[in-house]
């Protein structure tokens, strides 16, 4: 039986409507799903199917037009309640780590400094020792003092993953994490995410076009026309 404490994210009827002039675009249309603590969920679907919009809402990067979202049983959005940016930031830094298709490493900072960057703004107790531990865990221990320009794309994404994990998030959101990498490097990043999920118990929510990568997760959700379909 699933208890409230087992659930990381609970979405009910999440809808996101964008307006372009007089036209209404229903990017997400009443999606309901639950993601349990420690799950690895992949979202797949064609462009414009709403997968990134859904992950943005699940990751508190955007407010829904309608619907409710609970985070570990605590209501984030619901009954017309929209959180201001400041409140969303507080939720994000406590709960989530994000990685994106582009790595967004600061070119003038070393690998170590890039990973430590989030700690300049917010630091969970005990996070100080995480920088080097994570870099070693991700096989980047020998590259700590290199600049991003001196390492490969796959290594850059590992650094981005370490940066996302430095404040020990509960959930890792990965939006097309291998979009800029070749097949070999994509496979490596996929393995890293799988390891983090299995060995560190991290909840992983991933969007990917890559079917091989998407199948690494224990659960695959297909997105079509703003709706979610689970096989």
């Amino acid at each position: 039986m699933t208890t409230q404490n087992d659930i990381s994210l609970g979405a009910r009827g999440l809808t996101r409507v964008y307006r372009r002039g007089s036209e209404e675009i229903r990017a997400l249309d009443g999606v309901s799903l639950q993601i349990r603590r420690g799950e690895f969920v992949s979202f797949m679907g064609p462009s414009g199917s709403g997968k990134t919009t859904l992950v943005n809402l699940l990751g508190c990067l955007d407010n829904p037009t309608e619907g409710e979202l609970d985070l570990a049983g605590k209501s984030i959005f619901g009954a017309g309640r929209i959180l201001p940016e400041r409140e969303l930031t507080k939720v994000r830094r406590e709960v989530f780590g994000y990685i994106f298709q582009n790595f967004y490493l600061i070119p003038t900072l070393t690998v170590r400094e890039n990973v430590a960057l989030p700690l300049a703004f917010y630091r969970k107790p005990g996070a100080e020792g995480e920088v080097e531990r994570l870099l070693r865990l991700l096989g980047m221990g020998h590259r700590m003092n290199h600049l991003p320009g001196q390492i490969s794309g796959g290594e850059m994404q590992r650094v981005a993953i370490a940066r996302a994990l430095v404040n020990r998030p509960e959930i890792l959101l990965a939006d097309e994490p291998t979009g800029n990498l070749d097949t070999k490097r994509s496979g490596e990043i996929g393995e890293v995410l799988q390891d983090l999920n299995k060995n560190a118990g991290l909840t992983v929510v991933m969007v990917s076009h890559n079917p091989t990568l998407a199948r690494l997760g224990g659960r695959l959700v297909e997105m079509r026309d703003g709706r979610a379909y689970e096989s």
Partner: protein
Amino acid sequence: MISKFQIAYQNLLRKKARTSLTLIGITLSSWVLVSLLGFNRGYENALDHDIDNMGYQLMVMAKGCPYEAATMMLQGGAGLRYIEQSMVDSIVNRPEVDEVTPILMQAFFDPDKGDGGGIAGYYGIELASYPGMKPFLRFHQGGWFRDEKAAEAVMGYEAAELEQRVVGDMILVPEKNVQLKVVGILERTGTQDDGTIFVPLKTLQQISGIDQITTIGIKIKTDADSTKLETALYQLPDVQVVSFTQVKQTIMKLISTARIMVLSIAIIAVLIAMVGVVNTILMSVLERTQEIGILKTMGAMPGDIFRLVWTETLILCSCGAIAGIALAFVFARISDLLMRSVLPYAPVGELVAIDLKLALLTLVTIVGVGLASGIYPAWKAGRVRPLDSIRSEG
């Protein structure tokens, strides 16, 4: 661990050429500002010093343009007209007067001076009264004349240095073929006295064939009413009374227009530099929209981003202002020479006087204006949403 200051500093290093150009702009404006503020202070101090070292507060001279005459006196030139020496007696007994001294200024053309000749200025002074009015004069060599009719001269430090004279040398008064023995060389005073040749009044009257004087210097008693004395002196026939306080005010008024213009240019220079700062920081913010969005996903609050961008402005403005102040200190002497070359009258002494207080005032001004300029880019950066970075992703 990395601090916000390090992040801001590294951000500036990412566009080295743009950051350098902006820094140069701030440095130049800071240099101009501190130099002009230093000039304001230096000129006034030098003028005060010149006037205080005259030894007297009022001058009586023949009618004419008093300020032109005063300026000529300050510059060591000759007066325009003469007054009777007996006038000294009618002034000395006034209750407000402490001391008086008669002076005869004469200028002779010296064909050996400079390229193509020049004017040699001589001050005929009374041994009994003039040295007493200027007790601060010290001798580098020798001393004052033996008596009021001696064929002797006392040279100012620079006059002696220029002509390579020592005590005991004989100098020839040009045009008159009269020789005077150098009996004293004054120590440097930093005033016009440094370039003057002093001769006993009676000797100079005899050499020039003029038994009158050009000026009477009046030292007023400390508690006396100088306005009352000036009013009384105006009653004397055919004389002009020049108060050095008025001279100073007039000279300051004359240069105030130029000063306002130059200060306006300095302010414009600062404003142009600040437009450069806004441009640099705003460009940097726009280029880094995605990155700022990512910083927000990492937990940066709008205030964190605002402070980060503001810190960049602070670093730029502080470094530029400090570099400008340092250049102003290093090149103060050149600024001094430039100012002297364009000013109609420049007192002796340091014209561009920059001290720590002025340097701090400039630093605070530049950084203050800079931070005000940085508010808009910083505010704009603080408003970037994480979603903006994700939406604009490739």
